[in-house]
């Protein structure tokens, strides 16, 4: 499970997929998760980082992260299985 290597990510949360021309905007938490994925962090490391930075319950980020990774896959931004 990896973010596709050629996805361009800007600091302001703008994503561009040069393969198919799709572009996306993302909110702050999503931008952080994507940049962590770019650094090859695994889901546990990502959760830890988000919990440290944001005011959020562990159960919430667990649920949201699962769903978000699925969303990235649905949009062809990741390869492999989410699980």
């Amino acid at each position, binding site marked *: 499970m990896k973010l596709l290597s050629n996805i361009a990510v800007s600091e302001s949360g703008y994503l561009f997929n040069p393969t198919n021309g799709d572009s996306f905007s993302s909110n702050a938490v999503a931008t952080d998760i994507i940049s962590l994925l770019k650094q090859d962090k695994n889901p546990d490391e990502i959760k830890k980082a988000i919990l440290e930075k944001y005011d959020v319950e562990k159960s919430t980020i667990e649920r949201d992260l699962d*769903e978000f990774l699925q*969303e990235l896959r649905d949009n062809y931004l990741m390869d492999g299985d989410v699980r």
Partner: protein
Amino acid sequence: MTAESKAKVRYERPIIRKMNSGLMNKFGTRTEYAPTSHIDSVPVKRIIQEYGSPCFVISERTLRKTYQSALRAFKTRYPKVQFAWSYKTNYIDAVCNVFHQEGSWAEVVSGFEYEKAIRNGVPGNKIIFNGPDKSTDELKRAIENESLIHIDHFDELYDLIEITETSKKKAKVAIRVNMDVGVYPLWDRFGFNYESYQAWQAIVKIMNCDRMELVGLHCHIGTFMLTSNAYSVAASKLCDLAYNIKLKWNKSIQYLDLGGGFASTNTLRGSYLPGSDSSPGFDDYAEAITSTILNFGFKQEDLPLLILETGRAMVDDAGYLLGTVLANKRLSDGRRATIMDFGVNILFTAFWYEHKISPAQEFTHHTEEMVVYGPLCMNIDKIRESVSLPLLSRGDHVVVHKVGAYNMTQWMQFIAMRPNVVMIDAKGEVHKIRERETIDTLTGLELKPDHLKTFKL
């Protein structure tokens, strides 16, 4: 929240949104999502803390402001105007009394509403008694109180002829007239039809009965009328009847009652334009009605009193429903769904309106499209089919706007109980005006036969 977590950044569910270059966001500007954190300067959060969620909130300031602007629209155009508060729209006593303090009479359509108006202290002769269902006892009482009885059908007219034979007082009556005003379907099930001379026949019967006095003519042509022209047509048909009564019996009709039906600024389900753009507004309706009457050719001394029974347009804006997100889920087709703690059981008007929903707290500009459901285990329990809202999480509060009309009367006690209703007065003080129901409110009405009191499982 711990001291440590206070320093942390506010969390929002992660989302990405695909951008279609060249296409504008179809929802246009973002003002829809501006949070409503306060109502009349009172924090929404505080109301929910004190009165629970969901909770209806009425702004007394908005009630009065709306009443005064409606009155101004008519008074600046016509010398004799009287509003009568349509009880069925919202008959919580505190709401009725705001309108009575402003000068409204009462318009009621049942013995129950009649009794409510009397208990609120409305003088009998300032109660308009409408509707097809008036019992003999209710009619007798209305005659005794000199209330204005608006006759709906011939059976009622014959009842009255009989009752007044033995009553001490004459009955003060009007007839409800239905007519073609160019808006379809016709509301011809109430009152006497104008075009087929049924209304005239009823008038003749009343004029021939010396125990009844025909004081007025009434119509209520429909509800949420989006064209003010329909009111010109209605007014001119009532004027025509009044004119012919004058001609035949030399009797001046005291009032014309044009009923209710003005559109509020809500958006009807499935309509293309938001309600604020499509509703004509008080000035347009007033212009249509008053110019028709003024130009009809009444002598100055015969100019009838103009009565209006405006309901939803008077009270919609002043009502809010506060609620809380119970859950988020994703539907099988990928759409987002948000489940609220209020459903169509208490927000009955969700069947008619696309109610505006705002978050009650700040969010980033990110939004997503979602279906908004209520908490009932019923497929019909849908508040909005599709709405773009910020990334609501469980426990977040929302404010539903313009819910003042018909919800606090047509709400159902179904699956859940009805919540508290509070009113914010002009000074910003919050008053509870209707207690939330408890299980005892309901089971207190039930009776168990002896053989059903116990069981073994």
